[in-house]
């Protein structure tokens, strides 16, 4: 069994119109639409997967486009934002690209890394963080060269109803290290080369409400079925109540709500 979670596998979120979703995530952010399927629990809704050209774990943002859904409220008990990793010095390119697309943004630096912060049409809080030292040529796709392309997730930011308990699960069970803290945000890191950060913010005060513009769950990686089973045992021992194993066709999953109210999934990497 891996003794530390190897980063984020995917993030799944609730969006509105599928065409607007494709226009934003493929057209503006340059991500490849790598899978179009349906929500297995609601076959009248699509499930759209975007990622690098290979659809690798750690790069996958997935959406349930549900045009009739009411707008959600970002707050406690949720992943309140997600960030993508871009190469060093790529911000200038993205400033032009976002400006040309009419997407307002702000720039800042957090934990020593420059980032751009903006929202999509559904209100998702998105960041592009300059955290890639050496661009990977394999992430080039369509009109976005590898030198500036999104390489996958940098991480997620969580707002917990019980931040101390969320922190304990991250560090004592999942193997994340607390590496820094600034402006009411704690930064945790896993040893994975990509999708390896989790931030825990204490600046949110209202309880979140599920709906459009809200992250549904954050999925973390398990190496294979044996690793998956071992992690399930470990979470049971830690007092969580994970589901039984669920076949998602492309990977196997378990789900549980961590003590701070955020829905976690543990998903297996694709097997050869």
């Amino acid at each position, binding site marked *: 069994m891996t003794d530390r979670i190897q980063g984020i596998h995917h993030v799944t979120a609730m969006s509105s119109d*599928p065409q607007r979703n494709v226009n934003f995530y493929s057209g503006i952010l340059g991500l490849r639409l*790598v*899978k*179009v399927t349906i929500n297995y629990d609601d076959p009248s809704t*699509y499930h759209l997967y975007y990622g690098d050209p290979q*659809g690798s774990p750690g790069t996958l943002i997935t959406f349930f486009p549900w045009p009739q859904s009411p707008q959600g409220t970002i707050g406690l008990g949720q992943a309140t934002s997600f960030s993508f990793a871009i190469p060093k010095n790529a911000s200038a390119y993205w400033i032009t690209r976002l400006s040309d697309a009419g997407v307002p943004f702000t720039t800042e630096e957090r934990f020593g890394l420059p980032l751009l912060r903006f929202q999509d049409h559904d209100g998702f809080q998105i960041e592009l963080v300059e955290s890639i030292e050496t661009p990977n040529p394999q992430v080039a796709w369509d009109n976005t060269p590898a030198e500036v392309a999104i390489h996958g997730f940098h991480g997620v930011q969580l707002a917990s109803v019980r931040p101390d308990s969320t922190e304990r699960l991250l560090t004592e069970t999942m193997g994340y290290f607390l590496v820094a803290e600034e402006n009411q945000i704690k930064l945790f890191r896993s040893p994975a080369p990509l999708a390896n950060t989790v931030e825990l913010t204490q600046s949110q005060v209202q309880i979140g409400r599920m709906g459009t513009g809200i992250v549904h769950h954050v999925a973390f990686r398990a190496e294979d079925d044996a690793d998956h089973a071992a992690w399930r045992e470990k979470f049971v021992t830690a007092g969580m109540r994970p589901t039984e194993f669920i076949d998602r*066709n492309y990977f196997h999953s378990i789900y549980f709500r961590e003590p701070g109210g955020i829905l976690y999934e543990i998903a297996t990497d694709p097997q050869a």
Partner: protein
Amino acid sequence: MTYNEPIETLGTHLVLPPWLEEDRANVIKNLPSFESFTGAKFPN
């Protein structure tokens, strides 16, 4: 994403789980239309 599908065809067609394949025509009826950046029209 690639273990059961060639990289080239990723995201070009609607993939249903095996237990819904037989009912594909009905499933498609309930899905809104959209077009991807590769030109693929969904549902397909």
